[in-house]
Structures are given as structure tokens and as C-alpha cells.
């Protein structure tokens, strides 16, 4: 199996105007002598401290965790290793936990199956032969759970901040079929479920939609492009005309150029990482 990976991240309108750095980060590549491909996205919290470092460190910590040899790819083990790396980076760089308030989305695939994990918020897109499945994960009041909360033993405060709502974490699913039909569904999660994060272990072959061709992880910046619905943002960012070179960078640049022509472009930073299965 040959994987074609790429990733892109761009600063949003608000951070540009406020003189802040881009706090989203993304990475993609291959592991295990090209037998596996990975995609990682992290979104730093705007109201945190130096979360541009945070999103990069979460991404690098995730990559190091994925690089560790394991008999089986278990999300719980990968996340535990990620958090250990994160704490070690935090301590050695003398950062505080507010610097590391950043989400963690990752996917790893060997060509037959794929493990996808999301801690925090963002969007997962799965492009099959006959359908595009888009999952939008959101925490109420834009207060997502970050891996650093567990590392810094702040889980209890996080639970308290959401204790008035039964299901503060939601997943909205859109399935866009080949006949322009769109199915929608919403799933709710309790605060404890949301803090565990969502993990999916998928086979590449789907009974109804056919073979998975491309998968992509997005930061929640995909939900904040002015005048463009999230599903349209995702569809456009996956409308690759080729998978050569920096294909995701080129698609992102062109899409944002066009989006700025009709609105203000992305309000928030936006990042995505893509794995394409070469047929």
C-alpha cells in the first residue's frame, strides 16, 4: 500500500489582526518503513498562554507515541505515551499547563484498517468511493477537553465546569452520498465520555460506502470560515485534483484565496492533515 500524505495550517483572521501566532498545527507522514501512515492535528486554545508551542508539542508528543513499537495499536496506550512525552516536554522547557492547552486528533493506518482518536474538538472526514462522511465534534461553550488537563490533574475542575449539562460533548454526522443526498445525525456524550475521547477503529472497506480513499482530520477552524458551512469547507478542502507534492497546502491556499473573495476567510486558525490511499 502506498500512502500519499500532506498537511497544512493557516493563521485565522482574528489572530492576524491581534498580532498573535497561528496556534494550530498539523503533521502527516509514514512510519514502520512506510507500512503505516499517520495524520495529526492540534489546536491551541486562544485564551491559553503560549499555545502555539502547546499545539506543536502535543503534535510532536503524539508522533513520538506513534513511533513506539507496539504489538497492537491501542488508542489508550498511544494516548498514555503521548501524555508522558507531553509532561516531559513541559517540565524540560519550564512551560506551565496553560501553555499546553491544545487538542489532539490523530489517525494511524496500515492500509487495511485505521485508528482515529479525538481528544478535544475538530472534524473527521472519511471519503469513501460512494460517500463522504463528515463528523463534527464540539464541546459546549467552546470549552474543549485538552490532554494536559489529565497530565496536570485538572480533570475535576473540568468536570465541574460542565456539570450543568448532561451531554456537553456532541458529534454531528453528515453523510453525503453520490446522489447529493445528505443524512444527518447527532450523538451526545457525557462529560466523562468526552474526556476519554472518541476512538474509532475502522476497516478500510465499508459495506455501504465502498473503500476508504482519503481520510482527513481538521481543527475546528474548518467550522469558522465566514459564509461557508462546515460541510462545504470540508468538501472543498478535499477536492484534490492531484495527490502529488504539497497537495493539501495548495488546496488550502486556493480555497482560502477564494473564500476571502466572498467573505473574510477563516476567523480562527485552520489546520488539516490528510492520508490518501493510492490505488
Amino acid at each position, binding site marked *: 500500500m502506498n500512502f500519499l500524505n500532506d498537511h497544512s495550517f493557516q493563521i485565522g483572521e482574528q489572530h492576524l489582526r491581534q498580532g498573535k501566532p497561528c496556534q494550530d498545527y498539523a503533521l502527516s507522514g509514514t512510519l514502520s518503513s512506510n507500512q503505516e501512515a499517520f495524520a495529526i492535528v492540534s489546536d491551541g486554545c486562544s485564551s491559553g498562554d503560549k499555545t502555539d508551542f502547546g499545539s506543536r508539542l502535543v503534535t510532536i508528543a503524539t508522533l513520538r507515541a506513534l513511533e513506539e513499537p507496539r504489538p497492537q495499536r491501542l488508542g489508550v496506550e498511544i494516548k498514555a505515551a503521548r501524555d508522558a512525552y507531553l509532561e516531559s516536554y513541559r517540565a524540560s522547557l519550564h512551560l506551565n499547563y496553560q501553555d499546553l492547552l491544545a487538542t489532539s486528533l490523530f489517525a494511524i493506518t496500515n492500509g487495511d484498517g485505521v485508528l482515529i482518536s479525538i481528544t478535544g474538538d475538530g472534524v473527521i472526514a472519511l471519503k469513501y468511493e460512494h460517500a463522504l462522511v463528515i463528523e463534527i465534534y464540539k464541546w459546549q461553550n467552546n470549552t474543549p477537553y485538552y490532554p494536559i488537563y489529565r497530565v496536570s490533574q485538572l480533570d475535576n475542575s473540568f468536570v465541574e465546569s460542565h456539570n450543568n449539562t448532561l451531554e456537553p460533548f456532541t458529534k454531528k454526522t453528515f453523510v453525503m452520498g453520490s446522489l447529493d443526498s445528505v443524512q444527518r445525525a447527532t450523538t451526545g456524550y457525557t462529560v466523562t465520555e468526552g474526556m476519554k475521547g472518541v476512538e474509532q477503529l475502522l476497516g478500510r472497506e465499508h459495506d455501504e460506502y465502498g473503500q476508504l480513499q482519503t481520510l482527513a482530520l481538521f481543527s475546528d477552524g474548518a467550522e469558522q470560515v465566514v459564509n461557508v458551512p462546515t460541510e462545504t469547507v470540508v468538501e472543498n478542502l478535499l477536492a484534490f485534483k492531484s495527490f502529488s507534492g504539497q497537495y493539501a*497546502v495548495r488546496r488550502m491556499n486556493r480555497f482560502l484565496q477564494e473564500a476571502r473573495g466572498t467573505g473574510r476567510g477563516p476567523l480562527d486558525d485552520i489546520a488539516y492533515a490528510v492520508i490518501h490511499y493510492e490505488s
Partner: protein
Amino acid sequence: MNTMNDFQIGSGFQFSGATIDNLEASEYTLVTIALDETGSISGKEAEIEDMLKAAVGACFSSPYSNNLLIRVIRFGSQYNRQNGNGVNEIHGFKPLSEIDLNAYPALKGVGMTPLYDAVFSSVGAMNTYAESLVDLDFAVNGISFIITDGGENASTGAGVNDVRRELEKSVTGEIMESHLSILIGIDNGYDNTKQKLADFQRDAGMNQFIWAGEATKGKLAKLAEFVSQSISSTSQALGTGGPSQNISATI
């Protein structure tokens, strides 16, 4: 792996360009340098070769050197019998890192001046290649230099209207973000060359005409500097949606 692909422009002109699937950057400035190789440059060939090597060589130190694709052609009626209609491609659009300056051939000034063919090939190839890149979401702009010491008298493939059409297409913004076409005249000792070239620049719709004067070593060194600086300004302008700024109109 084949690193170059062949393309065809209308009227039987051909060119080559780097295989697009192998390009690693997301944006490129396309550069064409067209050199007069007619009888009137006879005796100055070595200086013109040095000028070409200096101009392209200087691009290696540009901060955007990884984002340049450079094509070099020469023109003269001696090439009329080849497919290129008076034009011979030294190399097609190529990443700078793949250009070997030492492999540039020696020029030999013979024959007459197919200027229309040269400009048509320069701009037509740029439009065609840019279109292929833009279709795949690359951001692209371009700059063309036509360096000649004589007016049109030998084109077989293109007329002035063909040239004008390609130039118009290149600046609509639909293909490239921007394209700058510069005609550079070198004094060949005949009284009316400067005027003939100025008329052609106006009739064809090229952006600039620059009279470089005599082909002395000093003037050609300045010309090389002008070419490399203009390339650098153009690549800096990529992404702004506009043409490059502050390109000096004198050499």
C-alpha cells in the same frame, strides 16, 4: 524517472516542462529567457553566454530559488526547419536546482530574426504550462525576457496578432496571477533598430521595452543583474495578486 514532459502549443510550437507530479513546492514563478542567436550577434556570443549564466546563476541566491521554474530558448532562422518554428529550446521549465550552467551550449550567431516566433513561444509556453499548474491548485506568476538586437524578419509560425493574443491571455489573471513581458533591445549599429523594437513592443502589447545599448561587457553584466533582480521581484510578488514592483526600466 522522467523529470521533463513535452507540451504542444498551437501552430506547431513545442516546449518542455518539469513533470508536475514531481514538483514539491506549492507556488512557482515561471521564467523564460529568450536569446537572439542571429547573425548580428556574431562576435558577441561569448559575452551573451556569460550574461545568461550570470543572470540564471544569480537566482541561486534568491530566497525564492526553490520556487523558480526557468526556461531558456534561443531564436534564429537557422531553427526554422526544426519543430520549433525558428526557436530552439535550450531547456524547458526546470527547477533551478536541476539547471547545470556549464551545460549551456555555445551560441553561434547566424541567420535572421524570427522575433514573433520567439515571443509567441515564450508566452504561449508559459500560458500553457501555467494553466496545467493552476489546474492543480499551484499559485503561479511569470516573467519573460526577450533579448534581441534586431526586429522581426524571419518568423514562420506566428504573426504579431498571435503574439498579442497570447500576451493578452497571460495578463487576464485567469491563468497566472500576473505576467510581465520585457523586450530588451541591444544596439546592433543600425539606426532604426530601437524604433522598430519599440513599435513591436507597443503593437504586440508587451509590458516593457528596455534599450540596453551596445553589447559591451559592462552593459551585459548590468543586463544580467537586471534580469536576476526582476526575477527576484516577481517571485516576491507571488501571492499578492499583483505584478512585481520597482523593476528598473533602465540598464
